[in-house]
């Protein structure tokens, strides 16, 4: 996720500054590049923000500059942050977005037998505590993950992933209606749109592939260390699992005989 230059509104920028100043102030000295990465901005944008904070001047009753900071040799430090040394409370949307995501993580972790479960529970408690009433609305939204078949599979694959072992998959290729056998070096387990996938380096295809867990017929953990090549690029799921490309055509499927229902729209590649 490389930060892209875009127009930031004054409200967004203020929100960012009110987190940036306390972030640096709490750390005495912090790397410029590291801070820019944390805040998802370029170093140029970060320096602009620092200059803006430093330029703040109150003229009355006596003129003074409340924020004093410096950056040099790739490091930032804030010697005076005045009244904004602590971050602003979480807004309702912020607290809820995080709590919903964390509860979803907790649900996912529970079937993956993942050791994160404990850390997730502790973090949820801390955020609920810090957010107070701002977090209340989060209980109105919930995400259910159900993997009747994938549950055991996810646990096995999660273990192989932590141990860095290769797996042998029997996988049902839906499009071709056949079972395929392959050795895979696991990279990640993903849950996208309610489906769980194993992402891994497929030794048969010599490429990164995603396997839907409910279509994996069986999995054997091999006594061989996984070797994911350095060139293996994880699938960019942040843009949605199936990214639209210019060669896509939009197909409208509608059937005259199906009186009921709406015309269905499907995106097909090429």
């Amino acid at each position, binding site marked *: 996720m490389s930060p892209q230059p875009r127009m930031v509104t004054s409200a967004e920028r203020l929100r960012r500054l009110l987190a940036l100043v306390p972030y640096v102030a709490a750390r005495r000295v912090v790397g410029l590049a590291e801070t820019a990465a944390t805040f998802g901005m370029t170093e140029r944008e970060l320096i602009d923000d620092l200059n803006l904070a430093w330029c703040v001047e109150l003229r009355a009753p006596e003129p003074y500059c409340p924020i004093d900071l410096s950056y040099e040799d790739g490091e930032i430090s804030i010697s005076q942050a005045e009244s904004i040394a602590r971050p602003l409370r979480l807004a309702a949307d912020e607290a809820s977005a995080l709590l919903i995501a964390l509860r979803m993580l907790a649900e996912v972790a529970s079937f993956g037998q993942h050791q994160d479960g404990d850390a997730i529970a502790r973090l949820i408690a801390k955020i609920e505590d810090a957010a107070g009433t701002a977090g209340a609305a989060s209980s109105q939204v919930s995400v259910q993950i159900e993997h009747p078949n994938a549950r055991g599979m996810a646990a096995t694959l999660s273990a192989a992933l932590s141990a860095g072992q290769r797996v042998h998959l029997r996988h049902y290729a839906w499009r071709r209606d056949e079972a395929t056998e392959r050795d895979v070096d696991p990279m990640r387990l993903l849950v996208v*749109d309610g489906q769980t996938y194993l992402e891994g380096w497929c030794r048969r295809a010599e490429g990164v592939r995603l396997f839907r867990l409910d279509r994996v017929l069986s999995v054997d953990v091999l006594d061989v260390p996984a070797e994911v090549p350095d060139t293996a690029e994880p699938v960019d799921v942040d843009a949605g699992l199936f990214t639209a490309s210019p060669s896509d055509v939009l197909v409208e499927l509608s059937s005259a005989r199906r009186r009921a229902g709406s015309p269905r729209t499907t995106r097909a590649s090429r």
Partner: protein
Amino acid sequence: MEVALSKRRTERLLSIVVLLLSSRRYLTAEQIRAAVSGYPEEQESFKRMFERDKEELRDLGIPLETGRASQFDDDLGYRISRQDYELPEIHLEPDEAAVLGIASRVWQSAELAGAATGAALKLRAASREADGDGTASPPPGIQPRLTTQEPAFGLLWEAVRDRRPVTFDYRAIGRSEVTKRTLEPWGVVNRRGHWYVAGHDRARDAPRVFRLSRITGPVKLAGPPGSVKVPEGADARKMVKDWDRPQARDHTATLRVRADAGFALHRWGTVTSDAANPGWDRITIDYSDPEWYARYLAWFGPDVVVLDPPELREAVIRQLKGALA
């Protein structure tokens, strides 16, 4: 030009926050104007600008209080209480910080992705210990993503959060006509990757579940905040689960399937060999919806022949003829 304008505005808003946080007294608009650079001389445009600034600060969640500046003064003043403004002390262990990194990347929708990253930044700013977290190399494990492609999501979230009723047009499953619904939403639920809203349907005077992808056109807020009362014990999660219960597979088909094809049918059906037809298997398999299943079987083309029941056989033949037409 626009960039410079926006920059001056940010500067001005930041100055107001610093000023009002450091003052114990309420400061009047005039006192704020005197301390902060960037306001115009002309009174009317100052007022307009100041009003907009206050609104923007409140939108950001900054607790701007109003009160009388002094007992001798009729003018209203403003201040920000430190206690209401500041995020309470929070200390994150390294493993919690790593989890925070994963959680902040779960949302893929415009509505809540920004909110989640914003919240994570505030928490990391509040906690020195959050350093060395998982941003650079997330620990192995499961990484979930939540998308909200349904345009209705944003407003329904707002409605649920602020307890406001909504109206929308809805096309129910198996219906071609669209009906207008008024709903007191109780909760939004994602189940198996689909979003649903559950609540009280006013016209039907009963609890109902709606799938977001079947909402056509815009969702409109239809009442003031706080006007929806969620009844004690209402469980949106359970309502959606009950609604989405898979249909019973109460039909059984008998098929003739080419032995080297129809992998899924072989795996999930009961296979007996077909002595009269070498190279073919006889498979019995259960299904729920005949129309849907006919479309599925038609997909296998010449590798599958339906023997029974006749309705399913007819439906598959119609499908195949339709494909040729």
